[in-house]
């Protein structure tokens, strides 16, 4: 007779335990410091906020941990701003010369650079965040190849342009597949098994139903989209696959979005930290882990000590959020 320990029958739980008032103190304190230093404090503010969200996320009663430092993010921040300022400087200089060839090539270089830098920024950001994230002392790491990812990205952009956006869904799935399949957590590996066609269909339904339903369909759209991303993500532990379920309904999405909207609107934004906490609580409340996940036997592997936060800072500039 096989003895199944109680531990394994019990579902692994993941939840967000942050508190609105607690986060509000951290959030407002950091905004004040950022304003007083005319923005220079931003890297430390960002790190403290990330640290709070990570440590408020509990898997089997142990907390995640973000181990980046303000200093690392500051160095990245300086790098990004030096590059941006020199790019703008070149652009303005060329405009002043009135030389049309120089002007057009400067504009061309400017936009080309912004386009080409995005895949490198994503790579850098994912690698930095992974290297600095841990749970029970076990570190994440990202093993993707910068050049390989760059070409994958450029191919996706070109195909999306040529197909007037249709390929966009497959492009997004390819990017996610690449990132997840190169992500490790100790000796666990990740994968994304979504299909571009399915994402295309989700987006197409949104485009077709958005206007006839006066936007009401968007709650179903977000439900489908979030389920698509969550439920196609897998973890492999010792050859066994662990899946996620996001048991969310359109009504839940409606409640989240509408309440958040009114909270922000009527408080002129003061409710922002409470809304952030509400939103994270929402996602982790519906996220369930399915399959035999043994959270006690994850083994640490080699450390990828990647301290360059420039990619992470660049994504802030482009307003791109990870995952």
């Amino acid at each position: 007779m096989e003895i199944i320990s109680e531990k394994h029958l019990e579902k692994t739980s993941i939840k967000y335990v942050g508190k609105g008032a607690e986060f509000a103190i951290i959030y407002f304190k950091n905004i004040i410091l950022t304003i007083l230093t005319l923005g220079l404090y931003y890297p430390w503010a960002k790190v403290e906020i990330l640290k709070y969200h990570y440590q408020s996320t509990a898997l089997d009663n142990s907390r995640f941990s973000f181990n980046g430092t303000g200093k690392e993010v500051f160095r990245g921040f300086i790098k990004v701003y030096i590059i941006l300022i020199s790019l703008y400087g070149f652009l303005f200089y060329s405009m002043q010369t009135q030389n049309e060839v120089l002007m057009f090539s400067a504009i061309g270089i400017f936009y080309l650079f912004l386009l080409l830098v995005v895949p490198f920024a994503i790579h850098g950001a994912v690698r930095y965040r992974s290297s600095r994230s841990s749970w029970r002392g076990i570190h994440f790491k990202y093993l993707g190849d910068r050049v390989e990812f760059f070409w994958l990205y450029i191919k996706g952009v070109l195909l999306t342009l040529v197909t007037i956006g249709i390929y966009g869904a497959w492009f997004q799935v390819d990017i996610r597949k690449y990132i997840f399949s190169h992500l490790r957590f100790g000796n666990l590996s990740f994968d994304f098994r979504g299909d571009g066609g399915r994402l295309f269909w989700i987006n197409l339904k949104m485009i077709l139903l958005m206007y006839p339903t006066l936007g009401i369909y968007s709650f179903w759209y977000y439900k489908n989209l979030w389920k698509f991303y969550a439920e196609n993500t897998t973890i492999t532990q010792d050859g066994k696959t662990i899946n996620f379920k996001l048991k969310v309904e359109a009504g839940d999405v409606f409640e989240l979005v509408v309440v958040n909207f009114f909270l922000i609107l009527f408080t002129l934004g003061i409710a922002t930290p409470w809304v952030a906490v509400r939103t994270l609580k929402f996602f982790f409340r519906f996220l369930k882990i399915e399959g035999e996940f043994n959270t006690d036997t994850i083994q640490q592997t080699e450390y990828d000590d990647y301290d360059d936060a420039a990619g992470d800072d660049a994504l802030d500039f482009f307003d791109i959020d990870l995952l």
Partner: protein
Amino acid sequence: MFFEVDYFDGKSSRSHKATLSANSLAFLISYTNENNKSKVVSWEISNIKKSGVYAKDFISFTYGDLFPFQRIESADKKFIDFVNNSDQKKLNNSLDAMLHKSKKRSIVFLLLTLITVGIATYFYIIPTVATGFATTLTKKNVIDFGDYVFRILSTELDINETATKKLQEFADEMTIESTFPLKLYVVQSDDMNAFALSGGKIIVFSSLLEKIETEAQLAALIGHEVSHIENRHVLKNIARNLSGAIFVSVLFGDINGATAVLMDNAHMFKQLSYTRSLEKEADIFGLDIMRESNVDLHGMPQLFEILQKETVIDVPTYLSNHPMLKNRIIYTEKIANNQNKFIKNTVLKQKWQQIKKSLENNNE
């Protein structure tokens, strides 16, 4: 004193229930490992790193410089209090502990501070820095900027060459102490308007010139525009507008659209009032130029009366970037009435007649 913690050795994710005791040099962590053996780990205080941020019911530390790092987590209230009250500066954070003591009071306090800091930055620091930037920019930069704007504009301007030449002669005849080389242009247009660009360029539209009756009125117009140039009003205006708008959008843009729109409009209102204050400054400074040039100061209120007649609706002061013309007529007339005796500049009268003639020729 013993505290309850979860200990992680950094090699695997196994969680060990452990007890921790602390002295002034080290944390001593004792637990039973997977082979049922008792273990004690000693953490030197100097090598312990705080892992998270302050929270009332959670604390975590990592240990060591070499990977893999060990870790402890605890929700033990006694341990959290112990750390926060210890004299180990690097482990506790007295500011955070104080802020989190009474959450409601701290949130109110932080919000009030945030509002005060935001208001002070928006109303005082940013305008001062922006105006300072506009004032310290080198003369060459200011001229280059004006030239750049003019090059863009000039493609759409129909310049009347003869009238331009005559208007330039008129301005040269006035007594103007200008740091910037003044260059005036007459542009054929039905709009009643005139404006100045940074670095010395003044553009006067022909229909305004046609309505002007005396050389004193023209001198008033030029005096007003010259003072915009001398005092770098355009640059100050742009610098303040842009930096203020960036501040507002950074602070509110991230939050939500509705608040951002509200704040943008508030910013526009404030900017209008700043522009009005610049206009008043230009009027007063313009009167000084007129006085120096031996022109009747009444030309200024007369010019405003012409403008008033031509503008159908006089927008209320709070919506207009020029102080309501009625106001301007009153305060400039007051100054004009106190003008000392002077010998009229007759050359200006001749030059003015030449301008009139060149405009008439153009219309034929």
